[in-house]
């Protein structure tokens, strides 16, 4: 297990209950998890086990019921949010990659990526410069002026990864990022995520059902019935 010294993301005893009374559902019953900067971990579990719920808590779009979450040296949640501006937290500290790329259809590739730094108040030129660097690193720079609808599925997913990385967030949450891709492209996406994680010191959590990519993780969290169990993965090296 990676040693964390106030770095990366750490979750302790996280609980989430939906609803109240008779109809209440305990989706998370005590989740412990830690991911170091530069590390990619897998999160797998059967349907209804609480994977999406955990991502939503980490992504600060739903409030946990109990437990503690820390990001780097900052406590984000401990019996209530410890951060007043969750929107800025999402914008600056967390990158999101979804099953579908969900690019903004009316912005070209560069501006899709540059939008985040622009939202954070960066000048357009600087934001686009950052976007171009990432597109370069992700090997889609030649499509920088294209509209999302003109890209292949794999290219779109790489642009989405660039968008998740552009604000250099300490955490990336990826929700089944390889589901629509064939096995070669799926492995490419994981390889890119690993490479970016190392390069930018980012902690990456990948939720997946995808048998093709499970062997690539060095560490895997199994979630079952709202509780996590950690295990070592095969950590197959990708080239």
């Amino acid at each position, binding site marked *: 297990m990676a040693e964390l010294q106030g770095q990366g993301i750490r979750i302790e005893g996280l609980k989430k209950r939906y609803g109240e009374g008779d109809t209440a559902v305990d989706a998370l019953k005590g989740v412990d998890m830690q991911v170091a900067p530069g590390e990619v971990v897998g999160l797998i579990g059967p349907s209804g086990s609480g994977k999406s719920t955990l991502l939503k808590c980490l*992504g600060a779009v*739903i409030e946990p019921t109990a437990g503690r979450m820390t990001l780097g040296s900052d406590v984000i949640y401990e019996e209530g949010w410890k951060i007043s501006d969750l929107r800025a937290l999402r914008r600056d500290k967390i990158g999101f990659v*979804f099953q579908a790329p969900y690019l903004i*259809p*009316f912005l070209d590739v560069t501006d899709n990526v540059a*939008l985040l730094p*622009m939202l954070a108040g960066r000048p357009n030129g600087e934001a686009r410069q950052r976007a171009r660097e990432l597109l370069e690193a992700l090997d889609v720079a030649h499509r920088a002026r294209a509209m999302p609808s003109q890209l292949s599925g794999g290219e779109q997913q790489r642009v989405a990864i660039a968008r998740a990385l552009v604000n250099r967030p300490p955490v990336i949450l990826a929700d089944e990022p390889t589901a629509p891709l064939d096995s070669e492209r799926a492995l490419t996406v994981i390889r890119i995520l690993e490479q970016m994680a190392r390069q930018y010191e980012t902690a990456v959590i990948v939720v997946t059902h995808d048998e093709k990519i499970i062997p690539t993780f060095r560490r895997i969290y199994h979630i079952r019935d709202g509780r996590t169990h950690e295990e070592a993965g095969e950590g197959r090296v990708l080239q």
Partner: protein
Amino acid sequence: MISLAGRDILHAWGKFVFTGLGLGLLIGVTLTMAGVYRGMVDDAKVLLDNSGADLWVVQQGTLGPYAESSSLYDDTYRGIRAMPGVARAANVTYLTMQVRRGDGDVRAMVVGIVPGGPGEPGQPGYLVAGRQITRGHYEAVADVATGFGLGDTIRIRRNQYTVVGLTRRMVSSGGDPMVFIPLKDAQEAQFLKDNDAIVRSRARTAGNPALNRPGVPGLLDAVIASQSANPYVNAVLVQIEPGYTPEDVAEPIRRWKRLTVYTRVQMEAILIGKLIATSAKQIGMFLVILAIVSAAIVAFIIYTLTLGKIREIAVLKLIGTRNRTIAAMILQQAVGLGLIGFVVGKIAATFWAPFFPKYVLLEPGDALRGFVAVVAICVLASVLAIRAALKVDPAEAIGG
């Protein structure tokens, strides 16, 4: 920061342009309706201006001669001319009727005026061609809108008139072009019946023992003669001498002649406040409906466009876009749609206004008010879409 609204409009420009075009035609109709009303008001003012009168003397207790019928003896003007402050006074008759032109007919307001020197009240002030009426009978001055040309023959009742002069923008308050004929002919035209009716009327009179007395020779002829002459006019138009206010001159006429007198201000109030009031309300109703329909269209389109972007909006929210930014995006799109619509509408209205049969006056002030209304409507119409967008949960972007 880039303009999200602008990018979206550029991306889906076809949708925006076509919607804007449709909205624009609707706005064009709205502007035209306002123009029709302005045209009616302007027609009324032109009517009063062209009459060349400062005062209108009419039958006591009536709102004549335009808004109600009014009838005065045709020698009343003599007494009025002698009143203090009166420079000129002239009889006038008005009769709206179908005037024959070739095989068809045109609707016109036939105005009976005293032939004479220019500047006489009731005379058309400005001719675009030809001359004023100088003879006492069978000459006419017609507005170009009637379609008559110089030298044409107009048939009014049984008489034929030769067009000797042409005017422009001489219309009744209803927008019908005017035809001026000599007063005597006009009085006859108002009164004169067809030949059969005259024969029947004479027979009736002759059959009345009170009027056809064997012992009183000449009585029947006198009665018939008085029956077939028309000693009435509709109004006396008065010009006042310098140094008098209209009210100074009107008051003694009211008191001593026991007639109703209107000043220019009062006459305008009657025409605009009473004569075209119903039409104005009719148009106002139209404007309200058009505004509602436009608002509904903008609201519907913007709402649909927004619903089509729910996923993107969820993603925008998840990655940290402010609600304010998203609301501004939708608002700007609505206003952008309104702008396209307004430009199209203004161009359309300007293009088609001259083809309307009645005068359509497109005032810049109305265009400005219309513009403000369009923007306000678009802002209102986007409320629904903005509410829908703000309700989107960023968690939706992550999915189940």
